[in-house]
Protein backbone atom coordinates (compact mmCIF):
# COMPACT_ATOMS: atom_id res chain seq x y z
CA UNK A 1 0.00 0.00 0.00
CA UNK A 2 1.40 3.37 -0.97
CA UNK A 3 2.35 5.71 1.86
CA UNK A 4 0.48 8.99 2.27
CA UNK A 5 0.08 11.70 4.89
CA UNK A 6 -3.25 12.81 6.32
CA UNK A 7 -4.49 16.40 6.08
CA UNK A 8 -2.98 17.50 9.38
CA UNK A 9 0.38 15.94 8.58
CA UNK A 10 0.32 17.53 5.15
CA UNK A 11 -0.20 20.88 6.75
CA UNK A 12 2.84 20.25 8.94
CA UNK A 13 4.83 19.39 5.83
CA UNK A 14 3.85 22.67 4.19
CA UNK A 15 4.88 24.49 7.36
CA UNK A 16 8.30 22.80 7.24
CA UNK A 17 8.76 23.75 3.58
CA UNK A 18 8.07 27.40 4.38
CA UNK A 19 11.19 27.60 6.56
CA UNK A 20 13.70 26.93 3.78
CA UNK A 21 14.77 28.57 0.54
CA UNK A 22 14.47 25.25 -1.34
CA UNK A 23 12.67 21.92 -1.06
CA UNK A 24 15.75 19.75 -0.55
CA UNK A 25 16.50 21.36 2.83
CA UNK A 26 13.23 19.97 4.14
CA UNK A 27 14.41 16.41 3.47
CA UNK A 28 15.44 15.47 7.03
CA UNK A 29 12.53 17.14 8.89
CA UNK A 30 10.05 15.66 6.38
CA UNK A 31 11.60 12.21 6.77
CA UNK A 32 11.13 12.57 10.54
CA UNK A 33 7.49 13.53 10.00
CA UNK A 34 6.88 10.57 7.70
CA UNK A 35 8.75 8.13 9.93
CA UNK A 36 6.51 9.13 12.81
CA UNK A 37 3.45 8.62 10.58
CA UNK A 38 4.69 5.20 9.51
CA UNK A 39 5.05 3.36 12.85
CA UNK A 40 8.55 4.74 13.43
CA UNK A 41 10.30 3.39 10.37
CA UNK A 42 11.18 4.49 6.86
CA UNK A 43 9.96 1.98 4.27
CA UNK A 44 10.70 2.11 0.54
CA UNK A 45 7.23 3.58 0.10
CA UNK A 46 8.12 6.42 2.45
CA UNK A 47 11.31 7.09 0.49
CA UNK A 48 9.32 7.18 -2.79
CA UNK A 49 6.80 9.52 -1.21
CA UNK A 50 9.40 11.95 0.13
CA UNK A 51 11.34 11.92 -3.15
CA UNK A 52 8.22 12.74 -5.13
CA UNK A 53 6.98 15.36 -2.69
CA UNK A 54 10.31 17.21 -2.58
CA UNK A 55 11.24 16.72 -6.25
CA UNK A 56 14.35 14.76 -5.34
CA UNK A 57 15.82 11.63 -6.91
CA UNK A 58 14.89 8.51 -4.92
CA UNK A 59 18.59 7.72 -4.61
CA UNK A 60 19.20 11.03 -2.85
CA UNK A 61 16.54 10.34 -0.23
CA UNK A 62 17.77 6.77 0.22
CA UNK A 63 21.29 8.14 0.65
CA UNK A 64 20.10 10.47 3.40
CA UNK A 65 18.12 7.73 5.15
CA UNK A 66 21.10 5.35 5.21
CA UNK A 67 23.48 8.05 6.52
CA UNK A 68 21.65 8.92 9.74
CA UNK A 69 21.29 6.62 12.73
CA UNK A 70 17.80 7.77 13.69
CA UNK A 71 16.06 6.70 10.50
CA UNK A 72 14.92 3.13 11.09
CA UNK A 73 15.26 1.06 7.97
CA UNK A 74 13.20 -1.79 9.34
CA UNK A 75 10.17 -2.03 11.64
CA UNK A 76 10.80 -1.36 15.32
CA UNK A 77 8.95 -1.91 18.59
CA UNK A 78 6.27 0.37 19.96
CA UNK A 79 8.82 2.03 22.23
CA UNK A 80 12.49 2.66 21.58
CA UNK A 81 15.04 2.55 24.36
CA UNK A 82 18.57 3.87 23.87
CA UNK A 83 21.18 3.31 26.55
CA UNK A 84 24.17 5.64 26.28
CA UNK A 85 27.44 3.74 26.63
CA UNK A 86 30.08 6.30 25.70
CA UNK A 87 32.93 7.02 28.13
CA UNK A 88 31.30 9.33 30.68
CA UNK A 89 28.34 6.98 31.05
CA UNK A 90 30.59 3.90 31.01
CA UNK A 91 32.57 5.40 33.91
CA UNK A 92 29.34 5.58 35.91
CA UNK A 93 28.09 2.06 35.17
CA UNK A 94 26.17 2.10 31.88
CA UNK A 95 27.27 -1.53 31.32
CA UNK A 96 25.13 -2.66 34.24
CA UNK A 97 22.15 -0.65 33.01
CA UNK A 98 22.45 -2.18 29.57
CA UNK A 99 22.92 -5.70 30.90
CA UNK A 100 19.85 -5.28 33.06
CA UNK A 101 17.76 -4.02 30.13
CA UNK A 102 18.78 -7.04 28.06
CA UNK A 103 17.87 -9.43 30.85
CA UNK A 104 14.63 -7.71 31.64
CA UNK A 105 13.44 -7.40 28.02
CA UNK A 106 14.77 -10.81 27.00
CA UNK A 107 16.48 -9.45 23.92
CA UNK A 108 19.92 -8.30 22.88
CA UNK A 109 20.96 -4.83 21.82
CA UNK A 110 19.53 -4.04 18.38
CA UNK A 111 16.59 -6.40 18.85
CA UNK A 112 12.94 -5.95 19.76
CA UNK A 113 11.35 -7.72 22.73
CA UNK A 114 9.17 -10.71 21.81
CA UNK A 115 5.93 -8.86 22.55
CA UNK A 116 7.00 -6.20 20.04
CA UNK A 117 6.80 -3.47 22.63
CA UNK A 118 10.40 -2.35 23.08
CA UNK A 119 13.38 -2.05 20.77
CA UNK A 120 16.63 -1.88 22.75
CA UNK A 121 19.63 -0.03 21.38
CA UNK A 122 22.83 1.58 22.52
CA UNK A 123 23.52 5.22 21.81
CA UNK A 124 26.74 7.16 21.46
CA UNK A 125 26.93 10.22 23.73
CA UNK A 126 23.54 11.85 24.24
CA UNK A 127 24.97 14.99 25.90
CA UNK A 128 23.99 13.96 29.38
CA UNK A 129 27.46 13.18 30.75
CA UNK A 130 26.99 15.07 34.02
CA UNK A 131 23.99 12.95 34.96
CA UNK A 132 25.29 9.56 33.88
CA UNK A 133 24.28 6.80 33.51
CA UNK A 134 21.31 7.67 31.36
CA UNK A 135 18.93 6.30 28.80
CA UNK A 136 16.45 7.75 26.36
CA UNK A 137 12.97 6.26 26.06
CA UNK A 138 11.20 7.53 22.94
CA UNK A 139 11.49 11.31 23.45
CA UNK A 140 12.34 11.42 27.14
CA UNK A 141 15.70 11.40 28.92
CA UNK A 142 16.09 9.43 32.17
CA UNK A 143 19.23 10.40 34.06
CA UNK A 144 21.27 9.36 37.12
CA UNK A 145 19.86 5.87 36.69
CA UNK A 146 19.92 2.96 39.08
CA UNK A 147 18.88 -0.59 38.18
CA UNK A 148 15.73 -0.13 40.30
CA UNK A 149 14.75 2.98 38.38
CA UNK A 150 15.31 1.17 35.09
CA UNK A 151 12.91 -1.52 36.28
CA UNK A 152 10.24 1.03 37.07
CA UNK A 153 10.65 2.71 33.68
CA UNK A 154 10.53 -0.57 31.76
CA UNK A 155 7.45 -1.59 33.78
CA UNK A 156 5.51 1.31 32.30
CA UNK A 157 6.58 0.36 28.77
CA UNK A 158 5.77 -3.34 28.73
CA UNK A 159 2.51 -3.00 30.63
Amino acid at each position, binding site marked *: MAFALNAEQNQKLEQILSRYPNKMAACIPVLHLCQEANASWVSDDVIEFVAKRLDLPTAHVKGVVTFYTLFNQKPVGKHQVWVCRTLSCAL*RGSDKILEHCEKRLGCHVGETSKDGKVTLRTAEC*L*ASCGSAPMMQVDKTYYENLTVEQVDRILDTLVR
Partner: protein
Amino acid sequence: MLKTTTYLTHSYGLADGYKLAAYEQQGGYSGVKKALGMPREAVIEEMKKAHIRGRGGAGFDAGTKWSFMPKQSQKPCYLVINADEGEPGTFKDRSIMEKNPHALVEGCIIGAYGIGAHAAYIYVRDELHLSKARLEGAIAEARAKGYLGSRPFGFDYAMEVYVHTGAGAYICGEETGLLNSLEGRRGEPRLKPPFPAQYGAFGCPTTVNNVETIAIAPTVFQMGGDEFSKLSQLHHFNDGGARIFGVSGHVKKPGLYEACVGLTLRELIYDLGGGVLGDRPILALIPGGSSCPVHRPDEIINHPDPRFAPFNGKTILDLPLGVDTFRMVGSMLGTCCAIVLSDAADPVLALHNLMRFYRHESCGQCTPCREGCGWIERILDKIVAGQGTIEELDRVSEIASDITGNTICAFGDGAAQPALSFVRKYRSHFEDYILNGAKSQTRRLTP
Protein backbone atom coordinates in the same frame (compact mmCIF):
# COMPACT_ATOMS: atom_id res chain seq x y z
CA MET B 1 41.40 32.09 41.52
CA LEU B 2 37.95 30.60 41.56
CA LYS B 3 35.21 33.03 40.55
CA THR B 4 31.83 31.58 39.64
CA THR B 5 29.32 33.58 37.61
CA THR B 6 25.67 33.28 36.55
CA TYR B 7 25.40 35.13 33.24
CA LEU B 8 23.98 32.10 31.44
CA THR B 9 22.96 29.97 34.38
CA HIS B 10 20.94 32.44 36.49
CA SER B 11 17.68 30.74 35.59
CA TYR B 12 18.87 27.14 35.88
CA GLY B 13 17.31 26.42 39.25
CA LEU B 14 13.95 28.10 38.59
CA ALA B 15 10.87 26.13 37.56
CA ASP B 16 9.81 28.69 34.95
CA GLY B 17 13.32 29.96 34.29
CA TYR B 18 13.08 29.14 30.60
CA LYS B 19 10.16 31.49 30.00
CA LEU B 20 10.26 35.03 28.66
CA ALA B 21 9.06 36.63 31.89
CA ALA B 22 11.93 35.17 33.91
CA TYR B 23 14.44 36.08 31.24
CA GLU B 24 13.30 39.69 31.01
CA GLN B 25 13.31 40.02 34.77
CA GLN B 26 17.05 39.34 34.63
CA GLY B 27 17.55 42.09 32.05
CA GLY B 28 17.00 39.86 29.05
CA TYR B 29 16.52 41.46 25.62
CA SER B 30 18.25 44.66 26.73
CA GLY B 31 21.51 43.70 25.00
CA VAL B 32 19.86 43.24 21.64
CA LYS B 33 18.19 46.65 21.83
CA LYS B 34 21.63 48.22 22.28
CA ALA B 35 23.10 46.15 19.46
CA LEU B 36 20.36 46.99 16.97
CA GLY B 37 20.92 50.68 17.70
CA MET B 38 24.58 50.40 16.66
CA PRO B 39 25.97 50.25 13.11
CA ARG B 40 26.73 46.69 11.97
CA GLU B 41 30.51 47.21 12.03
CA ALA B 42 30.33 48.45 15.62
CA VAL B 43 28.52 45.26 16.65
CA ILE B 44 31.37 43.19 15.26
CA GLU B 45 33.96 45.45 16.95
CA GLU B 46 32.19 45.10 20.30
CA MET B 47 32.19 41.33 19.89
CA LYS B 48 35.90 41.38 19.04
CA LYS B 49 36.62 43.35 22.23
CA ALA B 50 34.90 40.62 24.25
CA HIS B 51 37.50 38.07 23.07
CA ILE B 52 35.02 35.23 23.05
CA ARG B 53 36.85 32.15 21.89
CA GLY B 54 34.45 29.80 20.12
CA ARG B 55 32.84 27.58 22.73
CA GLY B 56 32.30 24.65 20.37
CA GLY B 57 35.85 23.40 20.71
CA ALA B 58 37.96 25.08 18.06
CA GLY B 59 38.40 28.25 20.13
CA PHE B 60 38.35 30.69 17.21
CA ASP B 61 37.63 34.31 18.13
CA ALA B 62 33.89 34.88 17.57
CA GLY B 63 34.08 38.56 16.59
CA THR B 64 36.83 37.85 14.08
CA LYS B 65 34.71 35.08 12.58
CA TRP B 66 31.82 37.52 12.16
CA SER B 67 34.15 39.98 10.42
CA PHE B 68 34.84 37.45 7.63
CA MET B 69 31.31 37.93 6.32
CA PRO B 70 30.98 40.14 3.23
CA LYS B 71 30.16 43.81 3.90
CA GLN B 72 27.82 43.83 0.91
CA SER B 73 26.32 40.63 -0.42
CA GLN B 74 24.19 40.04 -3.50
CA LYS B 75 22.99 36.79 -1.95
CA PRO B 76 21.19 36.42 1.38
CA CYS B 77 23.42 35.71 4.40
CA TYR B 78 22.70 33.13 7.09
CA LEU B 79 23.55 32.58 10.73
CA VAL B 80 23.64 28.89 11.64
CA ILE B 81 23.85 27.75 15.23
CA ASN B 82 25.61 24.48 15.87
CA ALA B 83 23.50 22.71 18.49
CA ASP B 84 24.53 19.22 17.44
CA GLU B 85 26.15 18.66 20.81
CA GLY B 86 27.51 15.13 20.99
CA GLU B 87 31.20 15.28 21.88
CA PRO B 88 31.64 12.64 24.61
CA GLY B 89 31.88 14.48 27.92
CA THR B 90 30.12 17.62 26.70
CA PHE B 91 26.67 18.58 27.90
CA LYS B 92 26.63 22.39 28.29
CA ASP B 93 24.73 23.47 25.16
CA ARG B 94 21.79 21.23 25.97
CA SER B 95 21.43 22.93 29.36
CA ILE B 96 21.35 26.39 27.75
CA MET B 97 18.66 25.34 25.27
CA GLU B 98 16.57 23.66 27.94
CA LYS B 99 16.94 26.18 30.74
CA ASN B 100 17.78 29.50 29.11
CA PRO B 101 16.57 29.33 25.50
CA HIS B 102 15.86 33.06 25.26
CA ALA B 103 19.56 33.84 25.65
CA LEU B 104 20.15 31.89 22.45
CA VAL B 105 17.24 33.57 20.63
CA GLU B 106 18.45 37.02 21.69
CA GLY B 107 22.00 36.10 20.70
CA CYS B 108 20.73 34.97 17.30
CA ILE B 109 19.23 38.40 16.61
CA ILE B 110 22.47 40.14 17.62
CA GLY B 111 24.64 37.75 15.64
CA ALA B 112 22.45 37.83 12.54
CA TYR B 113 22.43 41.64 12.60
CA GLY B 114 26.21 41.72 13.00
CA ILE B 115 26.84 39.48 10.00
CA GLY B 116 24.03 40.88 7.85
CA ALA B 117 21.69 37.90 7.99
CA HIS B 118 17.92 38.00 8.28
CA ALA B 119 17.49 34.34 9.13
CA ALA B 120 19.11 32.07 11.70
CA TYR B 121 18.87 28.29 11.69
CA ILE B 122 19.47 26.47 14.95
CA TYR B 123 20.63 22.97 14.05
CA VAL B 124 19.60 20.82 17.02
CA ARG B 125 20.40 17.12 17.12
CA ASP B 126 17.19 15.16 16.96
CA GLU B 127 17.67 13.38 20.29
CA LEU B 128 17.31 16.66 22.20
CA HIS B 129 13.51 16.78 22.13
CA LEU B 130 13.19 18.97 25.22
CA SER B 131 15.71 21.46 23.80
CA LYS B 132 13.75 21.68 20.57
CA ALA B 133 10.47 22.20 22.41
CA ARG B 134 11.95 24.89 24.67
CA LEU B 135 13.51 26.71 21.70
CA GLU B 136 10.28 26.55 19.70
CA GLY B 137 8.48 27.90 22.75
CA ALA B 138 10.97 30.73 23.18
CA ILE B 139 10.80 31.63 19.48
CA ALA B 140 6.98 31.71 19.64
CA GLU B 141 7.08 33.93 22.76
CA ALA B 142 9.57 36.28 21.11
CA ARG B 143 7.56 36.42 17.90
CA ALA B 144 4.33 37.16 19.77
CA LYS B 145 6.06 40.12 21.43
CA GLY B 146 7.36 41.38 18.11
CA TYR B 147 10.99 40.66 19.02
CA LEU B 148 11.19 38.56 15.87
CA GLY B 149 9.46 39.34 12.58
CA SER B 150 9.52 42.38 10.34
CA ARG B 151 10.46 45.05 12.93
CA PRO B 152 12.19 43.65 16.02
CA PHE B 153 12.05 46.27 18.81
CA GLY B 154 10.93 48.84 16.27
CA PHE B 155 14.13 48.58 14.25
CA ASP B 156 13.81 48.11 10.52
CA TYR B 157 15.64 44.78 10.41
CA ALA B 158 13.48 41.76 9.59
CA MET B 159 14.57 38.69 11.51
CA GLU B 160 13.47 35.04 11.72
CA VAL B 161 14.86 32.17 13.78
CA TYR B 162 14.15 28.55 12.81
CA VAL B 163 14.84 25.25 14.53
CA HIS B 164 16.20 22.56 12.23
CA THR B 165 16.67 18.94 13.32
CA GLY B 166 19.39 16.46 12.54
CA ALA B 167 18.92 12.72 12.60
CA GLY B 168 21.73 11.25 14.65
CA ALA B 169 25.21 11.80 13.30
CA TYR B 170 28.12 13.15 15.38
CA ILE B 171 29.84 14.36 12.21
CA CYS B 172 27.10 16.94 11.67
CA GLY B 173 28.72 18.88 14.50
CA GLU B 174 31.53 19.61 12.03
CA GLU B 175 30.47 22.92 10.50
CA THR B 176 30.49 21.93 6.83
CA GLY B 177 28.93 18.53 7.57
CA LEU B 178 26.27 20.47 9.44
CA LEU B 179 25.68 22.73 6.42
CA ASN B 180 25.27 19.73 4.12
CA SER B 181 22.83 18.23 6.59
CA LEU B 182 20.92 21.53 6.80
CA GLU B 183 20.62 21.49 3.02
CA GLY B 184 19.03 18.05 3.17
CA ARG B 185 22.07 16.00 2.19
CA ARG B 186 24.21 13.34 3.82
CA GLY B 187 26.19 15.10 6.55
CA GLU B 188 29.59 14.64 4.94
CA PRO B 189 32.04 17.50 5.57
CA ARG B 190 33.08 19.67 2.64
CA LEU B 191 36.55 20.57 1.50
CA LYS B 192 37.65 24.04 2.60
CA PRO B 193 38.13 26.51 0.94
CA PRO B 194 35.63 27.83 0.09
CA PHE B 195 34.90 28.68 3.71
CA PRO B 196 31.31 29.08 4.93
CA ALA B 197 31.69 32.89 5.04
CA GLN B 198 31.97 32.81 1.24
CA TYR B 199 29.97 29.70 0.35
CA GLY B 200 27.98 28.25 3.22
CA ALA B 201 24.35 27.26 3.60
CA PHE B 202 22.53 27.11 0.23
CA GLY B 203 25.65 28.51 -1.44
CA CYS B 204 25.32 31.79 0.48
CA PRO B 205 27.64 33.54 2.96
CA THR B 206 27.15 31.84 6.33
CA THR B 207 28.54 32.01 9.84
CA VAL B 208 28.34 28.89 11.98
CA ASN B 209 28.56 29.52 15.74
CA ASN B 210 28.26 27.30 18.78
CA VAL B 211 25.21 27.64 21.08
CA GLU B 212 27.16 29.00 24.05
CA THR B 213 29.10 31.48 21.89
CA ILE B 214 25.85 33.04 20.68
CA ALA B 215 23.99 32.74 23.98
CA ILE B 216 26.65 34.83 25.75
CA ALA B 217 26.46 37.64 23.15
CA PRO B 218 23.55 39.43 24.91
CA THR B 219 25.71 39.66 28.06
CA VAL B 220 28.51 41.21 26.02
CA PHE B 221 26.21 43.99 24.82
CA GLN B 222 24.75 44.55 28.28
CA MET B 223 28.16 44.87 29.91
CA GLY B 224 30.29 46.12 27.05
CA GLY B 225 32.88 43.96 25.31
CA ASP B 226 35.89 45.24 27.26
CA GLU B 227 34.26 44.74 30.63
CA PHE B 228 33.20 41.26 29.68
CA SER B 229 36.63 40.26 28.45
CA LYS B 230 38.26 41.51 31.66
CA LEU B 231 36.25 39.03 33.73
CA SER B 232 38.73 36.48 32.48
CA GLN B 233 42.02 35.74 34.16
CA LEU B 234 43.39 35.02 30.70
CA HIS B 235 42.47 38.42 29.28
CA HIS B 236 46.17 38.83 28.34
CA PHE B 237 45.86 35.67 26.21
CA ASN B 238 42.91 37.30 24.39
CA ASP B 239 40.67 34.66 25.93
CA GLY B 240 37.91 36.64 27.57
CA GLY B 241 34.83 36.46 29.69
CA ALA B 242 33.11 33.69 31.55
CA ARG B 243 32.02 30.30 30.27
CA ILE B 244 30.36 27.09 31.32
CA PHE B 245 32.69 24.37 32.59
CA GLY B 246 31.56 20.79 32.83
CA VAL B 247 32.95 17.83 34.68
CA SER B 248 31.88 14.20 34.40
CA GLY B 249 33.19 10.74 35.21
CA HIS B 250 34.67 9.88 38.59
CA VAL B 251 33.85 13.02 40.57
CA LYS B 252 31.48 13.40 43.48
CA LYS B 253 29.43 16.22 41.98
CA PRO B 254 29.50 15.92 38.20
CA GLY B 255 27.75 18.78 36.45
CA LEU B 256 28.01 22.22 34.94
CA TYR B 257 29.60 25.22 36.61
CA GLU B 258 29.77 28.71 35.14
CA ALA B 259 32.90 30.65 36.02
CA CYS B 260 35.36 33.21 34.73
CA VAL B 261 37.79 31.90 32.13
CA GLY B 262 41.00 30.83 33.79
CA LEU B 263 39.64 28.25 36.18
CA THR B 264 42.07 25.37 36.73
CA LEU B 265 41.32 21.67 36.51
CA ARG B 266 42.08 21.38 40.22
CA GLU B 267 39.41 23.98 41.02
CA LEU B 268 36.96 22.32 38.63
CA ILE B 269 37.47 18.85 40.03
CA TYR B 270 38.03 19.50 43.74
CA ASP B 271 36.33 22.82 44.55
CA LEU B 272 33.34 22.62 42.20
CA GLY B 273 33.16 18.91 41.42
CA GLY B 274 33.52 17.91 45.08
CA GLY B 275 36.64 15.80 44.55
CA VAL B 276 37.22 12.33 43.16
CA LEU B 277 34.82 9.48 43.94
CA GLY B 278 36.04 7.50 46.94
CA ASP B 279 38.80 10.11 47.40
CA ARG B 280 40.96 8.10 45.06
CA PRO B 281 43.90 9.53 43.13
CA ILE B 282 43.31 10.70 39.57
CA LEU B 283 44.63 8.38 36.89
CA ALA B 284 43.72 10.38 33.79
CA LEU B 285 42.09 13.60 32.68
CA ILE B 286 40.56 14.56 29.39
CA PRO B 287 40.29 18.36 29.51
CA GLY B 288 37.46 19.11 27.10
CA GLY B 289 35.63 16.41 25.22
CA SER B 290 37.04 13.08 24.09
CA SER B 291 38.86 14.48 21.04
CA CYS B 292 41.42 16.17 23.31
CA PRO B 293 44.59 14.35 24.32
CA VAL B 294 44.45 12.59 27.68
CA HIS B 295 46.70 13.82 30.52
CA ARG B 296 48.32 12.29 33.56
CA PRO B 297 47.72 14.51 36.60
CA ASP B 298 51.47 14.74 37.31
CA GLU B 299 52.47 16.30 33.98
CA ILE B 300 54.66 19.32 34.69
CA ILE B 301 54.19 22.60 32.79
CA ASN B 302 57.31 24.05 31.21
CA HIS B 303 56.90 26.65 28.48
CA PRO B 304 59.32 29.45 27.44
CA ASP B 305 56.56 32.05 26.83
CA PRO B 306 56.89 34.77 29.52
CA ARG B 307 53.14 34.62 30.19
CA PHE B 308 53.70 31.06 31.40
CA ALA B 309 56.01 32.15 34.24
CA PRO B 310 53.31 31.78 36.92
CA PHE B 311 52.50 28.22 35.81
CA ASN B 312 55.89 26.71 35.00
CA GLY B 313 56.88 23.99 37.40
CA LYS B 314 53.27 23.31 38.38
CA THR B 315 51.23 20.36 37.15
CA ILE B 316 48.59 20.42 34.43
CA LEU B 317 46.00 20.51 37.24
CA ASP B 318 47.08 24.07 38.03
CA LEU B 319 47.19 25.43 34.49
CA PRO B 320 44.26 27.80 33.85
CA LEU B 321 41.80 26.32 31.38
CA GLY B 322 42.18 28.53 28.32
CA VAL B 323 42.27 27.98 24.59
CA ASP B 324 45.89 29.12 24.18
CA THR B 325 47.25 27.94 27.50
CA PHE B 326 46.24 24.39 26.65
CA ARG B 327 47.20 24.64 22.99
CA MET B 328 50.67 25.87 23.92
CA VAL B 329 51.37 22.81 26.06
CA GLY B 330 50.36 20.54 23.20
CA SER B 331 46.87 19.86 24.44
CA MET B 332 43.45 21.18 23.54
CA LEU B 333 40.79 22.92 25.58
CA GLY B 334 37.97 21.71 23.37
CA THR B 335 34.57 22.29 24.88
CA CYS B 336 35.87 22.81 28.42
CA CYS B 337 33.96 19.80 29.74
CA ALA B 338 36.46 17.53 31.49
CA ILE B 339 36.24 13.77 31.95
CA VAL B 340 37.94 12.43 35.09
CA LEU B 341 39.17 8.86 35.49
CA SER B 342 40.21 7.75 38.96
CA ASP B 343 42.74 4.95 39.43
CA ALA B 344 39.82 2.52 39.60
CA ALA B 345 39.41 2.89 35.85
CA ASP B 346 41.32 0.90 33.28
CA PRO B 347 42.81 3.18 30.59
CA VAL B 348 42.87 0.35 28.05
CA LEU B 349 39.11 -0.08 28.33
CA ALA B 350 38.65 3.70 28.23
CA LEU B 351 40.45 3.96 24.90
CA HIS B 352 38.57 0.91 23.62
CA ASN B 353 35.31 2.66 24.49
CA LEU B 354 36.35 5.86 22.73
CA MET B 355 37.62 4.16 19.59
CA ARG B 356 34.34 2.31 19.25
CA PHE B 357 32.68 5.72 19.33
CA TYR B 358 34.95 7.11 16.59
CA ARG B 359 34.58 4.03 14.40
CA HIS B 360 30.80 4.31 14.72
CA GLU B 361 30.72 8.03 13.95
CA SER B 362 33.28 8.29 11.12
CA CYS B 363 31.29 9.43 8.09
CA GLY B 364 33.33 7.22 5.79
CA GLN B 365 34.33 9.83 3.23
CA CYS B 366 38.10 9.69 3.77
CA THR B 367 39.89 6.36 3.68
CA PRO B 368 42.44 7.04 6.48
CA CYS B 369 39.68 7.85 8.97
CA ARG B 370 37.10 5.28 7.83
CA GLU B 371 39.57 2.38 7.75
CA GLY B 372 41.88 3.66 10.48
CA CYS B 373 39.26 4.04 13.21
CA GLY B 374 37.94 0.54 12.53
CA TRP B 375 41.44 -0.92 12.40
CA ILE B 376 42.41 0.62 15.74
CA GLU B 377 39.19 -0.65 17.29
CA ARG B 378 39.82 -4.18 16.00
CA ILE B 379 43.36 -4.18 17.41
CA LEU B 380 42.00 -3.00 20.77
CA ASP B 381 39.35 -5.76 20.62
CA LYS B 382 42.22 -8.23 20.41
CA ILE B 383 44.31 -6.58 23.12
CA VAL B 384 41.36 -6.49 25.53
CA ALA B 385 40.65 -10.16 24.76
CA GLY B 386 44.26 -10.96 25.66
CA GLN B 387 45.24 -11.82 22.09
CA GLY B 388 47.13 -8.68 21.10
CA THR B 389 50.82 -8.33 20.35
CA ILE B 390 53.37 -5.58 20.95
CA GLU B 391 53.66 -5.09 17.16
CA GLU B 392 49.94 -4.40 17.01
CA LEU B 393 50.16 -1.94 19.90
CA ASP B 394 52.80 -0.02 17.96
CA ARG B 395 50.56 -0.17 14.91
CA VAL B 396 47.83 1.70 16.83
CA SER B 397 50.12 4.74 17.06
CA GLU B 398 51.19 4.34 13.44
CA ILE B 399 47.60 4.21 12.17
CA ALA B 400 46.62 7.19 14.32
CA SER B 401 49.57 9.21 12.99
CA ASP B 402 48.56 8.34 9.45
CA ILE B 403 45.00 9.57 10.04
CA THR B 404 46.23 12.90 11.46
CA GLY B 405 46.17 15.66 8.87
CA ASN B 406 45.11 13.35 6.06
CA THR B 407 41.37 13.85 6.15
CA ILE B 408 38.90 16.48 4.90
CA CYS B 409 37.76 17.51 8.36
CA ALA B 410 39.08 17.58 11.92
CA PHE B 411 37.24 14.40 12.93
CA GLY B 412 40.27 12.34 11.90
CA ASP B 413 42.57 14.35 14.16
CA GLY B 414 40.01 14.14 16.95
CA ALA B 415 39.91 10.37 16.65
CA ALA B 416 43.70 10.07 16.50
CA GLN B 417 44.39 12.25 19.56
CA PRO B 418 43.00 9.88 22.19
CA ALA B 419 44.62 6.85 20.51
CA LEU B 420 48.06 8.49 20.35
CA SER B 421 47.95 9.96 23.85
CA PHE B 422 46.48 6.96 25.67
CA VAL B 423 49.03 4.57 24.18
CA ARG B 424 51.93 6.95 24.87
CA LYS B 425 50.97 7.83 28.42
CA TYR B 426 49.61 4.50 29.65
CA ARG B 427 51.77 2.14 27.62
CA SER B 428 52.59 -0.09 30.58
CA HIS B 429 48.86 -0.81 31.04
CA PHE B 430 48.54 -1.89 27.41
CA GLU B 431 51.70 -4.01 27.69
CA ASP B 432 50.32 -5.66 30.82
CA TYR B 433 47.28 -6.77 28.78
CA ILE B 434 49.54 -8.20 26.09
CA LEU B 435 52.33 -9.74 28.18
CA ASN B 436 50.79 -10.62 31.56
CA GLY B 437 47.11 -11.18 30.89
CA ALA B 438 46.24 -7.83 32.53
CA LYS B 439 47.05 -9.22 35.98
CA SER B 440 47.63 -5.83 37.57
CA GLN B 441 44.78 -4.01 35.81
CA THR B 442 41.35 -3.24 37.24
CA ARG B 443 39.66 -4.45 34.01
CA ARG B 444 36.73 -2.18 34.66
CA LEU B 445 35.72 1.44 34.20
CA THR B 446 33.52 1.88 37.27
CA PRO B 447 34.93 2.28 40.80
